[in-house]
């Protein structure tokens, strides 16, 4: 049994079958890539995992518990963090404050009224946040207004915000889109390092095949809302069906 079990999930938007009988099993402490052409339903699938969408039918189990019917914040508290396709950060806050929010959420839970304490007195948490920023090489930007950064930096910040939560399952929706080559390589290196150091499972959606083949243990190819094949990277590379549906098109 994998840590994430998706069974017979269907999702329709009006006449469009965005997901059709999706089955997916992600083993603990592996990196599972989901690839497929634009509009294949990759983001929709993630939306069903984090409570943004509720599938029409099917079940989604995480660590033996169903996520369906739970609110996004409850699902996050179960141990699932997500990096979105378009960066979702706190644009009005500084980079360091962006990091403080997940750290506080980890310590204080979904809601706690700490209205008199000063954030500046949270020495340990601040140190933790700065250390994570250092790991993603953004420490020098900690006082910057988050909205004023480049798209690639926003993405890295969002990833750091997710990583600092120490999630059991990290969902990454095109984490390197909009990044310069050097930053992409840094991101690959960072994710590899995290994977070795921690007990973490990752589900990564990516169009950049270099990233996919550098990180993934298994790959699922999604086309028109249905998984085409699921296999190891080596075998996916040579798979005729995949070449036809996806790689051939991209090349």
């Amino acid at each position: 049994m994998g840590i994430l079990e998706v069974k017979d999930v269907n999702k329709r938007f009006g006449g469009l079958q965005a997901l059709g009988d999706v089955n997916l099993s992600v083993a603990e402490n592996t990196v599972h890539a989901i690839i497929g052409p634009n509009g294949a339903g990759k983001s929709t699938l993630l939306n069903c995992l984090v409570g943004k969408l509720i599938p029409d039918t099917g079940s989604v189990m995480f660590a033996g518990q169903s996520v369906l019917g739970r609110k996004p914040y409850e699902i996050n508290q179960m141990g699932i963090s997500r990096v979105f396709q378009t960066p979702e950060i706190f644009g009005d806050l500084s980079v360091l404050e962006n990091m403080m929010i997940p750290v506080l959420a980890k310590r204080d839970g979904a809601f706690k009224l700490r209205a008199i304490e000063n954030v500046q007195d949270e020495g340990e948490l601040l140190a933790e946040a700065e250390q994570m920023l250092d790991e993603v090489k953004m420490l020098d930007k900690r006082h910057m207004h988050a909205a004023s950064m480049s798209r690639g930096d926003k993405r890295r910040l969002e990833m750091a915000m997710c990583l600092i939560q120490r999630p059991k399952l990290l969902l990454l929706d095109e984490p390197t889109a909009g990044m310069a080559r050097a930053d992409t390589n840094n991101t690959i290196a960072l994710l590899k390092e995290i994977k070795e150091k921690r007990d973490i499972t990752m589900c990564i959606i990516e169009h950049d095949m270099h990233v996919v083949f550098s990180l993934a243990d298994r790959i699922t190819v999604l086309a028109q809302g249905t998984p085409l094949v699921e296999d190891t990277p080596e075998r996916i590379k040579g798979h005729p069906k995949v070449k036809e549906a996806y790689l051939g098109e991209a090349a």
Partner: protein
Amino acid sequence: MLGIKGKDLSVFLLVAMLALLAPFLLNPFPVDSAMAQFNAGYPDLMQRFVIFGIFAIGFNILFGLTGYLSFGHAAFLGVGSYAAIWMMKLVSLNIIPGIIMAIIFAALFSVVVGYISLRRSGIYFSILTLAFAQMSYALAYSVLTPITGGETGLQIKPGDDPLLSNLAEGEIGRANLFGLEMGDSAILRAGGWEFTMNVGYYVCALVMLVAFYLAIRIFRSPFGMMLRAVKSNQQRMNYTGLNSRPYTLAAFVISGMYAGLAGGLMVAMDTQVGPERMFWTASGEVVLMTILGGAGTLIGPVLGAGFIKYMENIVSKINSTVLHEWFAFLPDGMEDFLVTIFYPFVGKGWHLTLGLMFMAVVIFLPGGLVEGGQRIASIFRRGKKSGAGDESAKQETPAE
């Protein structure tokens, strides 16, 4: 000091100084001079400055931090006022129990209104709060007359005999703080100047300083940071394991309690209340104060409140006779011409001046008067030493 430091402490000390010295600062002109009508240092007005300051400080915790624009906060002020006057009529002429009750009742009412209104955001939230406030106003006017006194409102009357205050037969009770009457004043005369130090004003000022201090603590707390997160990106918040609803509700209730406190103080200063206190224009006024001063800044709402109350009470008193006096030194034709030009902007026309100023601020200074102050300060700083890179970098973080 007191758990606040740096810029926050300076801002707090500045407000404290202004509040304590207000009777002097606001009366800069000798009593007999032509400018005496610009003196704002009389107890009534000074009390209003700080009471509306409290109202706006609280409103800013909701609107400035979370971005939720309530159009019904006057309802909490009204509820607080009614609670306070009943305490004074029935229990004690000491203002403390009245003010405590005002806060409690405003809190209870804002829990209900907030719980329902916060199911929506944006314009729908604003409309829901407005609906609640107008409903309260209409009810206070009509069916709730037994509790609210309807159109005439409530006031302390001969025959009101509060349980804990020993009034002589036929004596009309007066609000006090452990015997110190709110209406008492000491008048200081120096040369042509006159300064009124009023007990009620200083009580209000102290309460305002406590309220302001708590607001600073809230702004700098983890809770305050969560509220700014609500404004910035609720989606990210929810996917970071945080439930944004109770955070917003807490902010709503806290700001409702500030409004209740302001309502209670109003009654403590002037022992009467009527439903017009809950009319929608009163809710709109606190929005204007906050935006004019600078929403989301610490000192902005206080400035905004002072500014609007000054306009309302001072600019509105300039009439055509006064204008003629001012321009009397000019040739007659010129004088009449200038008076005709200025007349629409003063006296009853003060709303026009306020409206124009409000538009100018919103268009040119979206950060309110505080932003104006910062810009002026930075011009001066640049003038002094052009290479102050460190300081201008600090400027960037929205500090106040």
